[in-house]
């Protein structure tokens, strides 16, 4: 067999190996996901996707809080956010470009809130002066 023949065979086998190694089973699932979610708004598509799969309720809280907090806010203090790196990143990303500070988790220990910042408490119940969300509360701006 010539060198060119060997090369042709190796190239063909390599391409076949790569084609066979594809995750073919995921393709119908992706098409189904796209057809189900394409007409929905962006936040719903993220809610249904992989990026929030580890805690969809927390993402729902972030999105509801984001919608409730006005654009004039200078930053967000998060209370009772899960101590989990991916959720910390998601929180920062979701509120960007606003800065986010993570307050103390212990109940009753109120953090100092800078002027113009809002507070979002995950899992917080109804209280005077707070906007109640399905998954927590939001209040502010701090004077």
């Amino acid at each position: 067999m010539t060198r060119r023949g060997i090369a042709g065979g190796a190239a063909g086998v390599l391409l076949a190996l790569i084609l066979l190694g594809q995750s073919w089973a995921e393709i119908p699932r992706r098409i189904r996901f796209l057809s189900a979610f394409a007409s929905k708004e962006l936040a719903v598509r993220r809610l249904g996707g992989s990026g929030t799969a580890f805690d969809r309720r927390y993402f729902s809280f972030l999105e509801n809080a984001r919608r409730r907090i006005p654009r004039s806010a200078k930053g967000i203090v998060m209370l009772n956010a899960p101590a989990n790196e991916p959720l910390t990143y998601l929180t920062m990303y979701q509120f960007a470009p606003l800065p986010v500070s993570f307050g103390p988790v212990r109940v009753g220990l109120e953090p100092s809130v800078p002027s113009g910042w809002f507070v979002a408490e995950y899992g917080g119940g109804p209280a005077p002066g707070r906007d109640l969300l399905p998954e927590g509360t939001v209040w502010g701006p701090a004077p």
Partner: protein
Amino acid sequence: MTLVLSLLAVAAALLVVSAVGVGTSVSFLPPERAFFLERLGWGDALGCAVLIAAVPIALGTGLAPRWGFVVLSAVAVLLGRRLRLTSRRRSALPGSVSIALLGVIALGVAVYALRALTEPMWANDFVAIWGLKGKTIYGAAGYPGRLTSLGFSHPEYPLGLPLLYAGLSFLTGRWDDHAMALLFPFLQAATLLVLFGWLRRRGASPTAAGLATATVAWFEPLYSAFLTGMAEVPLAFGLVLFGTSLADALDDTDAGAIRRLTAAAALIAAIKNEGLFFSVVGAMLALVFGKQRRWKIAIPPLAAALLVRALHWPWRSRIPLADFEGGLFSTSRVWDSLAAAGQLLGASAWIGLALVAVLILAGRSVAAGNRLLLLAGAGVAAYLVIPAFAVRGPSWLIETTLLRTTAALAPLTAAAVAARYAASPSAGPVDPADA
């Protein structure tokens, strides 16, 4: 807004960016027909470069970024026309592959587009690093100082990709991290155009060039849903631009080669930290193989990469690196790194690497291919040695990064291997009119 409308907006923005790049490319590629496909790919790269540069310039001067892009595009196109290359050489179009191979390549792009666009970009590094910075730049219309000390967001990384995200958002008028994923199959297609076009121009047969292109198009470790949003796909594109233009500059194929090399060096330095490393390796290869033109080839790209790094200075990290420490290096840690890499690869990966070795050995020694192999080999060596400095141990860095970082070398490696099957060292497609 529904996904379809957002996708149309991003596609329109990418078309405009490409058109600006193609307009600028006349000063980087000669007006020969053999460069036709590469011009399309380079157009995408140059257009993205203009958009990346327009964002900080506009924000720094108080101009609306959209108008900043318009002004900088006009300057780039006019400058391109003024510095346009001329050529009397006649060459043929790169030609096409068989319908079957073309179908395989097109299907590879389509499948990656489906993977990339199924849902909003979600990878941890997109959310924590690239997307966070892009969204902040877009939303704040600036670069807040807090990002320079946000450790998990790696303030030591260059800002090319976040600026590109912000630029696209300024053009479309909204931050849409789902539709913006269209950028990734767009960059994949540009990579394939440059790969196929360069291989054909440098004498590879349509089948050899087509097989290399199809293999890259379907290379899932790179073109995956997970890497969509991260810097590997843009870097892989930049490395193909850099490697092919380095090979062209060393073989003195045309008057635009050093310009292309310089532009590619600036681009890769703007995308990832290792862009500067590859620019240094490229300069070393130029000094070794460049003969009388060695300094002429080595200096401009290295200077461009260093300039890009210097321009990042105001936004660089103000905190020490948390993941690496120079004093940790030892040979035993390098061995640990190699052992971890060996364990990481599965049987099919080893078979694939063995087939690549067969392809290298069965081909003939071609200078351009050899140099690209050296460039890719230097990248693999760096990715294997750097974990020896990792604070959390070599295995940790190997397990978390090696597959994706080395995957970015796949298109460059494909160019290197397929170049060994070129008909003659510098033969390109011949124009029948010359016969």
